[in-house]
């Protein structure tokens, strides 16, 4: 099988290609390379980024400014390429075939005299647009190369290797208004007002205390004894304490008399009250 000289882009796949389109299931690189060398012709269509890229590459072989490209010739080149691929039983991707069909159509339109009745763009307009597209793609390729060739950060230009981080400090601003202050003070001052009511028992001698004391003492008091003698120590001097103790003890004596434990006697109004254990 002769190598197609006029279609330079149909070329053997490089040995290193990982993409084993032919389905050789072996990983033995030598065996693959050998078999490929024997078959000799595998189209490197994958090397093209689509039909437009292929067209651009083919256009370059015309060695003219893309603006002056012969679209007719280009269409023919493309169709030869596709024909060659087909002969070599190479499966081209669908978009390559679609492009081929479109270029065959364009070629026929370019060769025929213009049909004034035909709708849509003329063959020349279609050809011009294709040339524009090729030129634009070519231009993008060139500026992409210029872009990649610039002084790039991390390759030619470098940023500070030890950037100093900006620390974010949090400052707390404490808020309090006059109203908060007054409210707090009001809260403090009124808290006292709500303290549970508690009677001051310091100078109070309760009837329970008097009853307990009388019950204990009256057992020994067989004779009439002045009530004031039953007042507890410390409660018989100071006025208010004495009053409280006297009242409580008197009340307790009444209670015990009611229960029949003791007897009460008062000889006269305001005369001393005396009590004794009720004789049994």
């Amino acid at each position, binding site marked *: 099988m002769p190598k197609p000289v006029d279609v330079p882009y149909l070329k053997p796949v490089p040995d290193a290609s990982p993409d084993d389109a032919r389905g050789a299931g072996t990983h033995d690189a030598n065996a693959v390379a050998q078999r490929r060398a024997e078959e000799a012709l595998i189209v490197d269509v994958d090397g093209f*980024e689509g039909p437009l890229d292929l067209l651009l590459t083919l256009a370059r072989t015309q060695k003219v400014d893309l603006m002056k490209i012969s679209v007719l010739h280009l269409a023919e080149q493309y169709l030869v390429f596709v024909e060659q691929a087909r002969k070599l039983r190479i499966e081209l991707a669908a*978009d390559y075939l*679609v492009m081929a069909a479109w270029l065959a159509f364009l070629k026929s339109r370019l060769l025929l005299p213009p049909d004034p009745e035909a709708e849509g763009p003329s063959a020349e307009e279609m050809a011009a*647009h*294709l040339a524009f597209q090729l030129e634009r793609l070519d231009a993008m390729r060139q*500026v992409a190369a210029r*872009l990649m060739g610039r*002084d*790039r950060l991390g390759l030619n*230009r470098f940023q500070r290797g030890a950037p100093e981080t900006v620390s974010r400090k949090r400052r707390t601003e404490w808020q309090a208004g006059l109203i908060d202050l007054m409210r707090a003070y009001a809260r403090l001052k009124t808290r006292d007002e709500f303290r549970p009511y508690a009677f001051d028992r310091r100078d109070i001698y309760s009837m329970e205390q008097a009853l307990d004391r009388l019950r204990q003492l009256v057992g020994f008091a067989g004779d009439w004894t002045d009530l004031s003698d039953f007042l507890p120590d410390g409660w018989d001097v100071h006025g208010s304490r004495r009053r409280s103790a006297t009242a409580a003890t008197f009340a307790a004596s009444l209670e015990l008399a009611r229960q029949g434990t003791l007897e009460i006697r008062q000889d006269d109004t305001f005369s001393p009250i005396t009590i004794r254990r009720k004789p049994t």
Partner: protein
Amino acid sequence: MTDQFPDSDPAAPDFPPPPIEQQQRMVEAILFAAATPVSVRELADRLPHGCDPAEAIRGLRSLYQGRGVTLERIGDGYAFRTAADLGFLMQTETVEQRKLSRAAIETLAIIAYHQPVTRTEIEEIRGVAVSRGTLDQLIELEWVRMGRRRMTPGRPATFVVTETFLDHFGLESARDLPGLSELRAAGLLESRPPTETGIPMAEPDDEDEGDPGIPAEDLFEDE
């Protein structure tokens, strides 16, 4: 080092701003400390009230002219970068660059020169579908981001290049892209409706898979 600026508290708007030499020192310190460009606005926020960071930058740029590090304008911001001619000294700092695929490089160039540009427009220029991975890679590098949606049927997303892109390629702005004016003059940046002339577009139905010609593992060839 022992200078103290009682008026350097940004929270004290009533003090006069420090003298321009001090402002210059402050801007210098902030820009030196930052790895990424700092905008004039950010500088103003961090400097004491009343400072003129733009003026300080002008002074600094001329001061650093021709030095080992230079003050570069990058988009809205400024950053110190080592002089490009000294890159050869930086073997230890050189960042391993993942080699971009041809598809990625072309797509990047198209976005830079045609921005804002939709995916369909990119495909129309390249004549092949743009694989999801290609755009993802550019977005991951933070060189490309989504722009505003186009107000056309389907409201397609557009893509634009970023400040990181400008920084990486040492561009002050997207207007400084090499050859931009020539391309524009040649009419090569105008978008023409692709349907007008009926040139077939390789447009696979499966948008996300797209581009059968670029296997994903091809995206990052080893350097």
